[in-house]
């Protein structure tokens, strides 16, 4: 039985407090009017001239400004004002989504392990259940965020803005799908489905611990398969709703699976990191380095899978160069060059080189170092998915961004480790537990 160490608890509180202060600062430090922005622009004129040049291709972001009007200082300042207003919101959104996706990815991986009747990973089930405990909390936070967005506290989803839609025929055509009530209902359905499976699975594994027959296990097997079907559809739709619709003019059929790749690799990394932490504290005596080896192999494999999907999406759009699609990458390539290309190094090159060697995959500190890089890389990935649509050229990884991550990380750690201390760390009723305890590769 794990007990939540007071040190870690204090650490998570510290993260939350520091994060909260930073997030508050981020909201307070946004400019209050277009005039303020003009002053700001005056101060750093040289750099903004440059930015204004690269501005043109993604003028669609704030759609009431058509390309026909010239970029006078006024419109530019107004543009920047909207972006700066969005900045703390976007920072919070990236962090919220990122940690939610860790939990959701872990749930998908957990369901796959059940449905596939995996023999090696049973000893890690309780760790995964701990990570998915964040799911309900994260879902509520995200849902509140969506409600606030729909009440126009921010302008992240520009299709929620009636003025914008009135002048944008393309968005009008999508109104059947992109409208606030339907958006919120869909979000509620996905979240309810995911949470329902999570709670049900948790209940069944705990019941299986003391059961004499396998009825709970059988139920879990069946519900995992059903969940995976639901997940396949809901995850795709979630990515269209929550991320793709930030650029409502842009579309890509691959997008849902691409987001999934990012999700699953970060989730497996999180599972590995939490396991190594618990193992280091002496709580997982049945987890050996073969289990870590397998997790590291999944980190390696899914990193390459992520790159495959990233490349497929990027290359096909780059190759055909159809204007309505290519703007997406033009704005990212022009204004986010370092994060856009940097994440390839973090998410592909680095894990490829480090985790290729079989021996390294059994060394905990190798996994931890690579894991942190992968997590950072996928944070950047989400950042590059969201930010160009909401803050455009005004992006920066500063206090609002870092504080948001700290805040949500604090909540995440608190919730996950509280959940871990609620049940024994070995799912002893599982029929494959013996295989898993003796697992050696």
């Amino acid at each position, binding site marked *: 039985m794990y007990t939540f160490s007071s040190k870690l608890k204090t650490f998570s509180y510290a993260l939350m407090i520091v994060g909260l202060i930073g997030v508050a600062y981020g909201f307070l430090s946004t400019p209050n009017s277009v005039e303020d922005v003009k002053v700001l622009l005056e101060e750093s004129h040289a750099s903004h001239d440059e930015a204004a040049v690269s501005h043109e291709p993604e003028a669609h972001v704030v759609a009431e400004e058509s390309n026909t009007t010239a970029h006078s200082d006024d419109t530019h300042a107004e543009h920047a004002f909207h972006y700066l207003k969005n900045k703390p919101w976007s920072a919070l959104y990236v962090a919220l989504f990122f940690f939610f996706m860790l939990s959701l990815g872990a749930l998908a991986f957990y369901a796959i392990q059940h449905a596939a009747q995996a023999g090696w990973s049973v000893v890690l089930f309780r760790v995964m259940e701990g990570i998915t405990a964040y799911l309900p909390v994260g879902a509520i936070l995200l849902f509140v965020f969506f409600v606030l967005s729909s009440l126009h506290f921010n302008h992240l989803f520009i299709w929620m803005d009636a003025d914008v839609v009135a002048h944008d025929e393309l968005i009008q055509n999508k109104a059947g799908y992109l409208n606030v009530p339907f958006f919120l209902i869909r979000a509620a359905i996905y979240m309810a489905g995911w949470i329902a499976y999570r709670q049900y699975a948790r209940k069944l594994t705990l019941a299986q611990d003391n059961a004499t027959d396998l009825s709970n296990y059988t139920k879990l097997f069946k519900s995992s398969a059903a969940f995976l079907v639901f997940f396949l*559809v809901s995850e795709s739709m979630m990515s269209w709703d929550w991320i793709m619709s930030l650029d409502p003019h842009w579309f890509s*059929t691959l997008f849902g699976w691409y987001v999934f790749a990012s999700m699953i690799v970060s989730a497996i990394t999180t599972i590995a990191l939490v396991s190594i932490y618990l193992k280091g504290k002496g709580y997982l005596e049945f987890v050996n380095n073969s289990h870590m080896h397998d997790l590291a192999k999944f980190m390696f494999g899914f990193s390459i899978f992520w790159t495959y*999907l990233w490349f497929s999406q990027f290359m096909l759009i780059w*190759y055909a160069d*159809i204007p309505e699609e290519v703007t997406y990458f033009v704005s990212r390539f022009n204004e986010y060059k370092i994060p856009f290309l940097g994440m390839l190094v973090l998410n592909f090159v680095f894990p490829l080189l480090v985790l290729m060697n079989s021996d390294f995959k059994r060394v905990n500190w190798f996994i931890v170092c690579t894991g942190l890089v992968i997590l950072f890389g996928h944070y950047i990935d989400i950042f590059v998915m969201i930010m160009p649509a909401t803050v455009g050229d005004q992006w920066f990884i500063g206090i609002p961004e870092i504080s948001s991550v700290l805040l949500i990380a604090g909540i995440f750690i608190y919730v996950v480790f509280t959940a871990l201390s609620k049940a024994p760390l070995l799912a002893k009723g599982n029929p*494959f537990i013996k*295989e898993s305890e003796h697992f050696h590769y």
Partner: protein
Amino acid sequence: MSSHYEAPIRRPLIIGDKSYHDITVEVAAPVEGKANKLWWTAFTIALLAFLWGIGSIIYTIGTGIGVWGLNKTVGWAWDITNFVWWVGIGHAGTLISAVLLLFRQKWRMGINRSAEAMTIFSVVQAGLFPVIHMGRVWNAHFVLPIPNQFGTLWTNFNSPLLWDVFAISTYLSVSLVFWWTGLLPDFAMLRDRAVRPFQKKIYSLLSFGWTGRAKDWQRFEEVSLVLAGLATPLVLSVHTIVSFDFATSVIPGWHTTIFPPYFVAGAVFSGFAMVNTLLIIMRKVSNLEAYITKQHIELMNIVIMITGSIVGCAYITELFIAWYSGVEYEQYAFLNRATGPYWWAYLLMMSCNVFSPQFMWSKKLRQSITFSFIISIVVNIGMWFERFVIIVTSLHRDYLPSSWTMFSPTFVDIGIYVGTIGFFFVLFLLYARTFPVIAQAEVKSILKSSGENYKLYRDAGGKNPAPSKVIKAKKTTSEVIEEVSDQKNVLLGNIGIFDKATQNADDLKLISGVGPKLEETLNNIGIYSFDQVSKMTEKEYDLLDSLLDSFKGRAKRDDWAGQAKNLKNNE
């Protein structure tokens, strides 16, 4: 993986009371025996289809591509449809041998050899189409970046058709090497068992002097893992590159980013269906039901169900995004698929690919061999139509209505397709009679963990590794003794009664295929001498079979009478 322990909940992968020797004998049987009439009939049909295909190809090349049904708008139709279809089918083999190896799926061992053979033979078929659909086949070597007499005339590396060249040729060579490496221990087994000098010579050459030393095995396993690690990205990238042929274009209905993973899912889907079709037949005709069990079929059905669902999800995604995009060309492309002149092809593709695999959610249906067989064929029809729909319906109506047209194939289009099916089966039928169709070395490695009797023994409280033939062996002997029946008397009447007082018993174990246990069983029936065995004919084999439940067909397959005759004369 070192222990033989397996959770009791897992079902056995090798059915019945098998020893290492039984596996050897049963895998070698089709190679060592003679082809029957059924085989020759199938082979003749396949050969005729193949020859018909060759005729069509020669006619095309001699006369020109105009003999096909293509027109100025639809420049790709059956040729590329068949190409993608065959490449897709080929993917299951590598998936089974590489991806399932990486995921440590023991059940792949019963099926990987045939799946890989299928890969190689279908990639060969696929490889024909990029060549024969060229207007000037004799210039085909220009696709290779070879220094030439035209100064610096190079290929343009921007074309997915050139990537195809590299993808397919790499895929074929890597699959071939992977397959052959796995075959070495099995060829060595055939070499060591060969009686005829010619056969011995051939299998000695094929097995590259494999002696099975510990060091060889260790490297063998390492090579398999490395090749599996390389083949997995290869299998994904090959079909991805095939999908790029369409997805890089600007044609509505073709240009979509989901094609790479969705084509791969479709390839696995159709490939597994083809493996299922072939193996359901093979397990029957080659008596391999103990190794390709119902569970294997069921698991393949599950893969078909999963990949079918992924493909279905991709269809829905495409439809949704076509609407969502607001691009009217894109919207029309899908409207045209559903309601245009080729609506029947679209409907066929949808019903075969999206609905038919969903039946597999029912345990009863996916465990039914007949049903699996039907679905496996339905899926391949559906996947052929998928490629046809993607290619033809996107081309025949696109941007300019003045270029809209229709497509219908000619007998040459059809003839070439039929020819490749014939060629495929020619190769596969030859393979089934000359190659060890089950990786016996691998199957032997799971016998003690996943063999039915070993599992029974272990579950009954026995220790690992279990001694073989415990549970059933006793039963069989007692059954035989009890069944002192008419059949036995008839049998002994035909081959002669052995008189223990006057005659000496021969060592029946010298007959290949007879072990100590079987000898005991034979003795119990009353068979002791080579003389008796040598008198056995068809009729006596059948009698013997009805007496020996667990060794059906073995006496005939191993030609006991012939062997006994030799042994008798050598005495």
